[in-house]
Every structure is written in C-alpha cells, then in structure tokens.
C-alpha cells in the first residue's frame, strides 16, 4: 500500500512540444503528488497551457511521456483519459441548462439516470448552485458560471482536475473569493488539482507546490515559501516579485556569511548556505518589502547599507513603491515603503537617504 501512495498522480517525463518557430515545452519533467494543489506558474507564452493541454489529450507531444497514476497514457484519446480540464473560457455549453451541462460527462459514461440525479444534487449543494439547475449559462453571473464549470468536471471524480487560468475572467474581488472557494472544494473532494496561472499571488495562496516555467523550460519547483523566499534563478526572482536583482560573484566567506561583489561594485552580504558552492552563485535578489529606507544621517556601519537618492515614489495604497538611485553604482533599487510608516518619516522624491537590508534578506541566485 505504501508503494501505491508514492506513485505520483501525474508525471511528465522529458515532455517536448514544438510549434513552428518555437519550442513551447522544452524537456519538462515533473511529478504531481496525489491530493495536492500543484501550480504551473509563468508568464503568458511560457508553455504552461500547452503542457496542460497535452496532459488532457487535446494536444499531441513531440517527445516524452505523460503518466497518470503510474500508467503511460500517451496514446489514450482525450475522451478516455481519467482527467478533466476547466478551460480559461470555461466552455460551458450555451445551449444547455446548468443541469444538462453538469450531467453531460456522466451521460457519456452511461451512468444510470437515478444515480445521475443523485450526484447532481450533491454537486449542486457542494457548489452552492441550488435553484440554478434550469438556467442557461448566459443567465448566470461570472462566479456562478465558474462553479458550473468546476461542477461539470468534478462530478466525474477525475484522478486530476486540470485548471487553465479559470479565474482570469473574474474581477479582483470575485477572484479572491473564488480562490478561497477552490481551496475549500479541493479539501472537501480531495482531488488533485493541476493549476495553470500567470498570477503569482494566486499560485502562492492556492498551491502546495509551485513549478515556475519560462520559455518552455521548468525553472524551479518548490513550496510557495521556497519559491517566494528563495527563488533560485533571475527569471524566477523577477517573476515572483523579488525585483532587486544584483548579479555578482562571491569574494569572501566566513562566520556563516558570504560576501558578494556585484557587477556595479557593491559589496553585499548574504547568509551562507552549506548546500551551495560559492562558484555556483551568480548574484543575489532582495524583495522590495525587505529593503528599508532610513534618513540620511544614519551610520553606514553594518551589512548592506548604501547611500542613495529617492527618484520616484508611486503610491500603491498600503505601500509606496519607492525607487532609489544608489550613489555608488547609479543603479536603481526598489523599496516598498509602508504608507503608514511614511506618515511619520515623510520621505519625498529627491531626498538623500540610506537603504538597508539584513543579510538574511539577501537571497542567493544560481542562474
């Protein structure tokens, strides 16, 4: 039994898909654990949707294997695969009622009428769609349509539910609500979710595991915390919002710290990681919210303290996106200054300041 548990729900082995002029999926291998939410995160055009469509059987691959529950399903047609996809456009059948949409898959499987009725009843309850059964999709709100699309797929109890940016068409507030809903539903039904999104916040809040893709390649796989706090490549760091990136090389180490010299000549300090050899290090990244701004007079002693001048302040509500030009290099560094704190400090553009971040905030990049 233990052995069966360890079989991944979905596995991709060296998946390759080429379109004319572009390799959409470039030797991607990954394993999706059973009962978890796995996100494929990346900018649009990174190949994440193509990978999902290959798993669903809607697209053929050029190389590699797709496995569901340990079985290679490369040649199984879409309508016989034990997975179901929720499309970005939702693809609800416009000429059918909610009920007919939801029962469509069960009818194809020749499930008896009574059983269908019973399972629709349960699904309608789970999704909070009571009273909508006889309506057509066009008579529902965006959030309700979303639930119908989920219900239509979940009622088949697939081994894995594939979701292709299902919340992209909703407005911000509704999207937040649906994220919570999705989490709840996933917990209740226990089905594996393979979730494709370009929204890092959505991926961070929904997932058990995130795989970041860029230009068809898998960049990094990890928990939301790992991806957010220790992005390992410049692309991942940039995509996840650790936008202060300093390419550089390790020049010294000791006392559990390493010193890097950046290309611009800054000396930055990071904590030493025993698993990383210093030759592999290509730079560091820092999240803007970890960069502090201090008044000009503050002392320069200590790690990661640099003089600069505020060049731009963009009000974002709860924080102020502040760009500081560093005196030493002329490069820009971004800090998210708390709006509340700035009511006291009153920084303004043009002001000479000091920026600082702690060595623990320096994240080491490897590529």
């Amino acid at each position: 039994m233990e052995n069966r548990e360890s079989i991944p729900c979905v596995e991709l082995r060296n998946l390759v898909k080429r379109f004319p002029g572009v390799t959409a999926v470039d030797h991607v291998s990954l394993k999706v654990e059973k009962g978890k939410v796995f996100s494929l995160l990346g900018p649009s055009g990174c190949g994440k949707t193509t990978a999902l469509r290959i798993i669903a059987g809607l697209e053929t691959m050029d190389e590699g294997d797709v496995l569901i529950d340990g079985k290679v399903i490369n040649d199984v047609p879409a309508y016989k695969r034990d997975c179901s996809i929720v499309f970005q456009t939702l693809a609800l059948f416009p000429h059918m009622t909610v009920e007919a949409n939801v029962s469509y898959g069960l009818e194809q499987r020749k499930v008896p009428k009574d059983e269908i009725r019973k399972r629709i009843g349960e699904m309608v309850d789970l999704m909070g769609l009571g009273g909508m059964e006889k309506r057509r999709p066009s008579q529902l709100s965006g959030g309700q349509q979303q639930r119908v699309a989920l219900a239509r797929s979940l009622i088949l109890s697939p081994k894995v539910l594939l979701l292709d940016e299902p919340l992209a068409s909703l407005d911000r507030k509704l999207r937040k609500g649906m994220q919570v809903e999705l989490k709840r539903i996933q917990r209740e039904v226990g089905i594996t979710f393979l979730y494709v999104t370009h929204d890092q916040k959505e991926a961070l809040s929904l997932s058990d595991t995130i795989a970041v893709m860029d230009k068809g390649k898998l960049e990094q796989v990890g928990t939301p915390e790992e991806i957010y706090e220790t992005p390992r490549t410049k692309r991942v760091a940039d995509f996840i919002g650790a936008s202060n990136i300093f390419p550089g090389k390790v020049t010294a180490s000791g006392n559990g710290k390493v010193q890097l010299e950046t290309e611009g000549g800054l000396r930055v300090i990071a904590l030493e990681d025993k698993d990383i050899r210093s030759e592999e290090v290509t730079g560091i990244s820092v999240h803007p919210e970890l960069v502090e701004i201090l008044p000009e007079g503050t002392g320069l002693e200590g790690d990661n303290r640099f003089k600069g001048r505020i060049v731009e302040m963009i009000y974002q509500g709860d924080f102020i996106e502040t760009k500081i030009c560093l005196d030493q290099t002329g490069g820009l560094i971004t800090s998210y200054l708390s709006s509340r704190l700035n009511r006291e400090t009153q920084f303004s553009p043009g002001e000479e300041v000091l920026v600082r971040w702690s060595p623990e905030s320096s994240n080491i990049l490897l590529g």
Partner: protein
Amino acid sequence: MKSLTGKTLLAIATLTYLFMWVPTIILIVFSFSNDKLGIRWEGFTLKWYAEIFNNAAVRNALEMSLIIAIITIVVSTVAGTVTAYGLYKYKFRGKEVIRMSLLLPIVMPYIVTAGALLIFFTRVVDIPLGYPSILIAHISFSTPLAVFIVLGRMQRIDWSLEEASMDLGAGRLTTWRRITLPLLMPAVIASAVLIFPWSFSDFTITFFVAGVGNTTLPIYVYSALRWGETAAVNAIGAIFVALPLIGLLLINFLQKKRVI
C-alpha cells in the same frame, strides 16, 4: 433628430424605404382589384387568386418550384455545413483555391452560369433537362451560400466547447451531434431561409436548363406576362412576397421559443 442633418437623413431613409416597398405594395393591392389589366382599382375581389388556384398550369408550376426549393434547401445546407466544417477545421493542400472557387458561383453573372450549365448538361454529360438539371443547377449555386454563412458562424464559435465535450468523455460523433451542430444551427437555419427565395424565384438559370415543358413559377410568370395576363400575375407576385415573409416570421417565432 432635430438638426438639419438629422432631418435630411430621415427624409432620405423614408424615400429609400418607399422606393423599396411601394411597387410591392401596389402589386399586392392590385392583386385584389377587379381590373382585368391589374393596373387600376376597380373594387375588391379575390377572383384572381381563385383563378390561379383553379388554373392547373399555375398549380403545377408552384408545385415544381416548391419541390425544387425544398430539395435544394436540404441538400445545399447539409453539403454546405459539412464543407464549411472541413474548410474551417482541417488543413490540406489547395484549401485556399477551393475556398475562393466556392465564391465564384456567387459573383459570376447568372447568364454565364446558365449558359455553361446548359452546355454541360446537353453536350458534356447527358443529364435530362427537367427536374434533374434544375436541381443540380440550383444546388450548385445555393451550396456556396450555405458554406459562407456557416463559415461566418464558425469564426465566432468558441471551439474549446468541442474540446470540453471530448474531455468530458464524448467521442467525435457525439460531440458533433450534441455540441457542434446545435452551435451551428442558427447559421444552418439562416442559410435555409436565404436559399429558399434564391431557389424559389430563380429565373435566369432555371429558364436555360429547364428544357421544354418544365415550368417553374417564375417561368410561368414570364410567359403569362407575354400573354398579357397582368392581373393573375399580380396575385402570383403577392404569393412570392408572402411565402418567404411567412417563412421568416416562422423562423423568428421558433428562435424566440427555443432561444437558439
């Protein structure tokens, strides 16, 4: 509508509308007139209608026109829908050539098509003039219409609906029957509605390929006018207007009821 431009536009629109409809309305009004020549109002009568319905030649012509129109509609919409699907969904060599050549029957002068068909039927292949030749001719100029109407609809369909159907476990045929066809239905019906008057009232091509003694309603009207039977022709004209109109209203009604 208070500005000068507004008033001018309204006047032009009204004139255009009158220009389009007045002759038709006059024709229908005079079809109820007791005047033998059908060009003056001499009191209300239904006798011209009675006359054309009692006239075996008119009945036969009407019957022939209806039979041809119905067969043409069925064959053309089916062939047109399948052709459009193939043109839209599949990639093959010469696709663009086929697509463009399908436009040809629509833009070519009728007289050219008519002459070509007649020569083809009598000299190249031996098709008997009459129902067979008329049907082939009608289907060949009606099918492209269906192809382009259905193609237009296909460009606005969310094709992930077909994928969703297959993802949910339906095979290709079931998907076509339960998803694709219902989605294309408005276009299929629209092409049927457009093909009906096209086929029903076609004169030029039918006249060329009909052969001797095969009289459709338009051909009957033409010969009746040559014999000076204006009043009866008015009544037939009224029917020509009424039939497609009833068809359109019926479609409209059905669409509202079934929310296509």
